[in-house]
């Protein structure tokens, strides 16, 4: 029986990239379902995506941010019975030809999430200097909170198995830049992580959803969120307490 793969691509004002992203992703992954999440774009992202006729499209009425958009993707994948999901950015930084390698790694090792990391082989686009400092800080913070060493905690290029899909559909951290928080959440709730070396590209056109330098505000907010996720009881335990609340 063929396994169903869903490629989740959240897009906000990516009219200049979206057609190319869909076409290239389709070229390398013809049997997968490409899912574009239009996160309340004010430009023609939706229309352009529809015109390719190669993707399913979720058109969100409001802008939720990457976290909310991606969670909608997971909800779709969970409800439609997909076996694997891969998250890809809408700006062509993530190479669609690596999707199959991520999924292969998922199947071969017994893990739930595979992260495509720029910083294992240091191949391809390495991001700006200030960003890398920020990433370094988050790396150390993640290690402190979970004991797990991740080379690329802000990488959004990740593959998920069925277990992880169902979990993320319900519990995805919905704030602005959820990648590091997602890591802590996954570790805390028993999901196994692995990294695979990938070669990323520079953003082609448009504006990054994270402003060109990782701001102090972002660092404080994300670090705080990671801290609290690490302190929280597991989601299962939280559910039990909610049942007893009025």
């Amino acid at each position, binding site marked *: 029986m063929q396994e169903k793969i869903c490629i989740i691509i959240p897009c906000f004002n990516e009219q200049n990239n979206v057609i190319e992203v869909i076409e290239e992703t389709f070229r390398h992954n013809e049997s997968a379902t490409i899912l574009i999440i239009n996160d309340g774009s004010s430009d023609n992202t939706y229309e352009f995506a529809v015109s390719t006729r190669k993707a399913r499209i979720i058109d969100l*009425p*409001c802008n939720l941010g990457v976290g909310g958009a991606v969670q909608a993707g997971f909800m779709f994948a969970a409800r439609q019975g997909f076996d694997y999901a891969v998250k890809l950015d809408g700006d062509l930084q993530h190479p669609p030809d690596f999707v199959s390698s991520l999924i292969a790694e998922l199947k071969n090792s017994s893990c739930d999430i595979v992260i495509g990391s720029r910083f294992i082989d240091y191949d391809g686009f390495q991001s700006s200097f200030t960003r890398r400092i920020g990433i370094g800080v988050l790396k150390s913070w993640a290690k402190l909170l979970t004991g797990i060493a991740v080379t690329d905690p802000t990488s959004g290029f990740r593959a998920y198995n069925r277990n992880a899909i169902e979990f993320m559909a319900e519990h995805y951290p919905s*704030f602005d830049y959820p990648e590091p928080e997602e890591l802590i959440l996954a570790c805390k709730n028993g999901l196994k992580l692995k990294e695979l070396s990938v070669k990323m590209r520079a953003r082609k056109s448009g504006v990054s959803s994270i402003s060109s330098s990782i701001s102090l505000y972002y660092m*404080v*907010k994300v670090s*705080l*969120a990671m801290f*609290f996720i690490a*302190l*929280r009881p597991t989601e299962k335990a*939280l559910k039990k*307490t909610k049942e007893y609340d009025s």
Partner: protein
Amino acid sequence: MILEKIQIISLILSISFLLFIFELIRRKKVKEAYAILWLFFAAVFILLSIWKDGLDYLAAIFGIYYPPAFLFLFLIVAIILILIQFSVVVSGQNEKIKKLTQELGLLKENLESRKRSINQDE
């Protein structure tokens, strides 16, 4: 370091407050992003409660005769800023709710007219 009575009281209150906010965030009743201001001001409050010289200095700058009054001023300013933050958040949510309601209404109309055309075809 001997603390005055008012310092001890404000220290106990602000630490309890900080722990309370911590617990609210931990239990997911308050989102971390909204709690940042609360945590920041609670931390500054704790600092000023212990560090009498700092408080005296700041009070002098503002021309306040009784230094603990500066703490109250600080608290009031903190509350105003946090309320403004909430005004912004609520306004944004209002806008989202309006959009959702409109989209839902349009979706229902779309659904109903399709049902009608299916019924007509039968």
